[in-house]
């Protein structure tokens, strides 16, 4: 293919690294191609605004910003956080599954990011605590965190290959429930996975999450929002038609006693 015929594939980032370099050298000397690319850019400029508005899922902002702010902190505090939630096993599994994807190495860190994010979010004062809509009480930023894993359980279900593990973490006097799941079924439409804590028969909402394409999901929930005098008997995950269920509407897929 002549260089000038690669304009579209260059624009759509379809060229291999070598082809791309070659084409970029060509661009330096070919004004036509430079103009065509500029023209494509300006002609397509407005197209994103044709998107029909779709409501993002509940809690997305908390999850995304939590993960974003965790980026720099994970580098600084990786030691600390790995002590809190050992995710090495997951990371190993993930990387073996994704060996043929060298360019996307950071994808493997998805789970890590989700959870680390949640932890960091709570470190910076619950501003982005993953709570699913309820009001959160801000705490002053903690300089030194004193995280301590109080309890860790594995959740199981009879009719699903999905697995999850949950941990109660005590941090500066408040409790955080963290949960990570894998091999989840994909969700349809507004469906979400809802975490519940049970006091006797009474379910309390304890975080909402969705599964990524690899069937993985993670959530961290500040227990400060729940009545502190209650004892928790079990933790469960159900698939709910949307993020608004106040009691489990869907089937409980995974659970464990506490």
């Amino acid at each position: 293919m002549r260089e000038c015929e690669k304009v579209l594939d260059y624009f759509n980032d379809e060229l291999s690294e070598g082809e791309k370099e070659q084409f970029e050298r060509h661009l330096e000397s070919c004004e036509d191609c430079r103009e065509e690319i500029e023209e494509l850019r300006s002609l397509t400029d407005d197209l994103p605004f044709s998107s029909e508005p779709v409501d993002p899922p509940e809690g997305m902002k908390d999850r995304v910003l939590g993960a974003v702010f965790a980026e720099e902190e994970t580098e600084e505090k990786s030691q600390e956080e790995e002590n809190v939630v050992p995710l090495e096993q997951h990371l190993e599994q993930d990387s073996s599954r994704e060996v043929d994807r060298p360019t996307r190495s950071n994808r493997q860190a998805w789970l890590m990011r989700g959870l680390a994010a949640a932890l960091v979010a709570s470190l910076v004062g619950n501003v982005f605590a993953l709570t699913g809509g309820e009001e959160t009480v801000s705490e002053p930023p903690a300089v030194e965190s004193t995280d301590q894993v109080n309890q860790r359980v594995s959740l199981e279900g009879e009719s699903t290959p999905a697995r999850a593990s949950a941990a109660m973490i005590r941090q500066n006097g408040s409790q955080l429930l963290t949960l990570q799941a894998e091999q989840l079924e994909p969700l349809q439409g507004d469906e979400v996975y809802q975490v519940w804590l049970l006091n006797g028969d009474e379910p309390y909402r304890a975080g909402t999450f969705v599964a990524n394409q690899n069937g993985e999901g993670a959530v961290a929930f500040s227990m400060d929002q729940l009545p502190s005098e209650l004892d928790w008997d079990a933790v469960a995950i159900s698939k709910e038609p949307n993020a608004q269920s106040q009691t489990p509407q869907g089937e409980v897929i995974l659970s464990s006693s506490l």
Partner: protein
Amino acid sequence: MMALITEKKGCVMSNRDLEYYQKMIEGDKQSLEAIYDKYEKLLYSFVIKLSSDHSLAEEVLQEVFIKLWTQKAKYDNTKGKFSSWIVTITRYTAIDIIRSKKESVSLEEETDVPEEQSESVEDLVEWKEKSSTIRKALDQLSDEQRKIVDLFYFKGCSQSVIAKECDLPLGTVKGRLRLALKHLRKNLATVKGGIRDA
């Protein structure tokens, strides 16, 4: 008159964006949050238009805002509006992630079309202003032209895939696409003009 007002608004908006962006570079989390709040729904809706996949859309947004925050992607205000820049970053990030999923997961399932909101409550003035005119302009294209724009821009397909899908000789794809996009530009001007006259 209306064009003047629109331009003025656009100008004010991008200055605010630039202000947020510069504060964000200095490490101000509130400014990143402000950018997020402003663009969340547009970018989310855009990725769903690109991929029809809700969980993927969240992943893409996460990646986009990580690129912003860690400055792996840098905005240069001399090269255009912040909104154009952030949708472009989002498009490339989405294409990249969709492509890597397709390579590693062979049993790619078509997910169902997301539920769309009936009422239009976009917070973003630019979106509100542009969406209906662009949709109208797209509607006025021929089916073939709409398809080629969709495959190229929204699906990020290569030239050879477009040639196959549209049953065109490889060498004619670029010409057809440019024609379709110019047609779209003309339609946009007509639609806008119509609104102004009304």
